[in-house]
């Protein structure tokens, strides 16, 4: 009886081993197939990259061909007429750059100035600011809220300090705008 059980157990064990082996083999096969599939995908991607690189090269070459130097020079001669920059278009030193910002020397010709109005002259009243929604003049306190300098408004339209009183805000003091 005992021997029979032993035999049965041994048979069962054997079947178990075979089952385990079978499972492993099946898993291995699955894995292998998966690897092959991924591999095939990689190869496909590589091929796609190669084909895109080739297309890229074709397009780049086409662009280079259409924009070649001879062609550009011909276009420039006929259509654009660009010329090489001259010496006075280059700034070669910081000193040369600084010259543009320095005060004119004694006796130098006066720089061309733009017309403008300065405080103290007859400055006309600034048009009233009108609300775009209601069409009525804006109240001074609406603007005051956001301003630190007590509602001073000014605009700069000419070099130097300029004061423009805004007629629409009667209470507001006149501020100074510095450029």
């Amino acid at each position, binding site marked *: 009886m005992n021997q029979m059980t032993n035999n049965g157990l041994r048979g069962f064990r054997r079947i178990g081993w075979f089952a385990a082996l079978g499972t492993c083999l099946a898993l291995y*096969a699955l894995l*292998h*197939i998966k690897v*092959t*599939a991924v*591999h*095939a995908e990689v*190869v496909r991607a*590589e*091929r796609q*990259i*190669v084909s895109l*690189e*080739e*297309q890229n*090269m*074709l*397009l*780049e*070459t*086409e662009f*280079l*061909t259409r924009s*070649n*130097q*001879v*062609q*550009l*020079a011909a276009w420039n001669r006929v259509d654009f007429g660009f010329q*090489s*920059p*001259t*010496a*006075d278009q*280059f700034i*070669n030193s910081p000193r*040369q750059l600084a010259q543009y910002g320095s005060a004119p020397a004694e006796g130098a010709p006066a720089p061309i100035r733009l017309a403008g109005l300065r405080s103290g002259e007859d400055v006309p009243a600034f048009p009233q600011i009108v609300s775009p929604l209601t069409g009525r003049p804006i109240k001074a306190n609406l603007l005051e809220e956001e301003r630190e300098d007590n509602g001073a408004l000014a605009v700069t339209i000419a070099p130097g300090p300029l004061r423009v009183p805004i007629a629409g805000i009667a209470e507001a003091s006149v501020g100074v705008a510095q450029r």
Partner: protein
Amino acid sequence: MNAYAVPRTIIAGQAGLVDQRRRSLLIARLRLLLVIVVFVLVALAALVKIAFVGLVQPGPAQQSMADALLPPRGEITDRNGVPLARAFPAYALWYNPAAMTEGNEGGPPLVRSPEAVAQELKAIFPDLNTYEVTQQLASGRPGYLRRRVLPEDANKVMHIGELALELPQEEDRHYPQGSLAAHVLGYVAADGDGRVGMEQVLNDRLLDPARRAEPVALSIDMRVQGALEDELRRGMLSVNAVGAAGIVLDVDTGEVLALASLPEFDPNQVESSDVRVTQEQHDRGITAPAFNRVTNQVYELGSTFKPLTVAAAIDSGAITDLSRRYSATPYKVQGHTIRDSHPLGATLNTPQMLIHSSNIVTGHIVDEMGAETLRSYMVELGMNERPYIELPARGFPLWASGSWQRIRAITVGYGHGISVTPLHLASAYAAMVNGGIWRPATLHRIAPGEAPRGRRVFRASTSARMNQLLRMIAVYGTGRNADAPGFRVGGKTGSAEKPGVGGYRQTTLVSTFAAAFPMDNPRYVVIAMLDEPQGTVASSYQRTAAWNAAPIVGRLVPRIGPQLGVMPDAHRDIDLTDLRPLVGDVN
């Protein structure tokens, strides 16, 4: 006995039956087994096949991306990496009449009439010859209708919908810049080998599978090359010259930044007339467009040699005082009269000699220096051998061998009696202005700090003095038309009569301007040469270099200067104050 016998018989009979039964059973089982074995084998074979198909077959042989992207012939780029020549899988338009009539069943090769198809193609390729293409389509013979079709145009051809119009991709060599730098690059012949230029020189390197993936960078700067060719062509056409040559050379490394020879050819479409001339053309002195005038043709370059002579004289100690005056009246040497193109006064000093380009005074200077000294300087400058450059076509100078006679040295002093290529002159000028070091010219890009050491020809002091003198020629002398504002150009004109049958032909000139810039720290040498210029409105009816070659340099330098890192500056120049009083009243 009987009792035994019967049952024995019975037994024997039974036993025979059993035996027979057993045997037939065995046979049946064996047969069954056989059938099973066969089935199992078949099943196994099927399983193996399934396993093979499932596990092995779909895994395609991996193709390396590097292999797939490896060009069949390496790319050539300029110094900044702009492709100048590349392998290009171009489409070709191939006419295959059999495509529609597979199996030779007859029938027309095209859906529509050849005329209609030719019209459609004409709409895509405006330069197509409709008549020829119609004839070819109607003839039913396969053949190329066109090569190097752009992808965009290939798509349009596909849309025509004719099966007989095939668009195979072919490996081809393409030069995106067209004829630009054609003489530097050369072309690839039908056998797959390079010809003429660097395609020939680098042939093995470009075909080597291990190295061809890496592009080869030349020393050429594509923008400079474009500007040089553009200005040369303009100058050449405006004076009806038969040819022109130009070169831009880096004085400190010997790198050639641009090298142009006109007329040019298109390496994308090389005709036999580009590389060969007929006997009749040869007799008239016409060269093929593929012939490189810069490296292969030797010319007497005339007065451009005078600065070299003066440099040799200063360097050897024959001139110690630039203010010393020499007689400027014509004189005879060994039966030849040395004269100037027009009278330049009784006496001239050295700076005046250069400014007015006097042959007579050059003769006196050579006399004082000695023929052998001048000869040795010319040898040092490489004037007695082929020019140093990688290109296969390099002309051998016409160089008088042996020791020079007095008349030979004097004529060489002003650029006659010696024929060299414009490249010789460029290398010599580079040595003269860069501090005195002669270096071979090269078409390979040189990494910073890896310039060849070269050989010293002139002392640095001589070179500094020559920079002043060259600048003076451009400011006060014949080179004024080349003096681009702010670029401190210095250079010398040269207008040499071309030798013909029975002496020099006074009406055919080779006019050259050899220049360097900026003269306060010379970086580049520019040579512009015109072959047989005519007097036209553009050159104020003059044929000399001051009126045709010098303006080319004057227009070219502002174009290439900023690209090469030389910014124009009107407030900077080489100091000429010590020499200015010597040239008197010039304006």
